[in-house]
């Protein structure tokens, strides 16, 4: 059973490479049971999205 530290590591690595089938399975099982890691797993892809927007100058266009 994976702990949260390993799960956050896998979630991060999923941004760099394709995870193996067994890594994906372990991840999935953990995420079903752990809301903290589930939230984390949504936030990490968002960080990349925000960095892309940042590089495009979206921060300069924001008004609100």
């Amino acid at each position: 059973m994976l702990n949260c530290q390993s799960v956050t590591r896998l979630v991060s690595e999923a941004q760099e490479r394709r995870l193996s089938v067994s890594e994906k399975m372990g991840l999935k099982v953990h995420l079903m049971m752990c809301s903290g890691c589930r939230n984390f797993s949504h936030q990490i892809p968002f960080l990349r999205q925000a960095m892309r927007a940042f590089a495009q100058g979206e921060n300069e266009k924001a008004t609100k």
Partner: protein
Amino acid sequence: MTFDKLKAEGVDAAVGAPSISDPELLKSLRSQMLKFAHLQLGDEQSAEDAVQEALIGALKNAAAFRGHAALKTWVFAILKNKIADSLRQKKRLGEASALMQEREEQEDLHELFNAKGFWEPDERPAAWGNPQEALHQSQFWKVFELCLEALPGQQARVFMMREYIELESDEICASVGISTSNLNVIMHRARLRLRECLENNWHQTKGQPC
């Protein structure tokens, strides 16, 4: 090279733009660029060179830009390319320091996870709802930039190479002189830290329940 020298070379032809030939704007832009280039390239001379080339490139085309925002974004886009080229050319510039700093950054995990590797109760990530909306909010970006600046040196450098300059992992490993596994560790730490900073300083101040 200074602004005066650039002017002397007659590259401030962008009359009418808002404008890169404005000394105050150029000065502030240049210092932001130098800071970023220095972090990425590790030495002052390469940083100066990259900024220099980027500014000259930008000055030549400055007439094409209408607003300050577009100008800064454009100049940084040119700078990103110069830095990427420079990094690809000179491999392995900071191996020893990379490993040392990595050890210092091990600390992070003990604050977030308990001995068994599960979240400490007060560190457990909250739900952010629909964070995409934040990309249009200046408050979010203010916090985001502060959080990026708060990343420690090695994490900041590698994270920005990957996510801002958008180098491939193997290019980063080659130029920083680290293994793929080092890279994964550094990216993991940087993401944990950036996420936590956003949660504490942006998400929690929105007043939404967890």
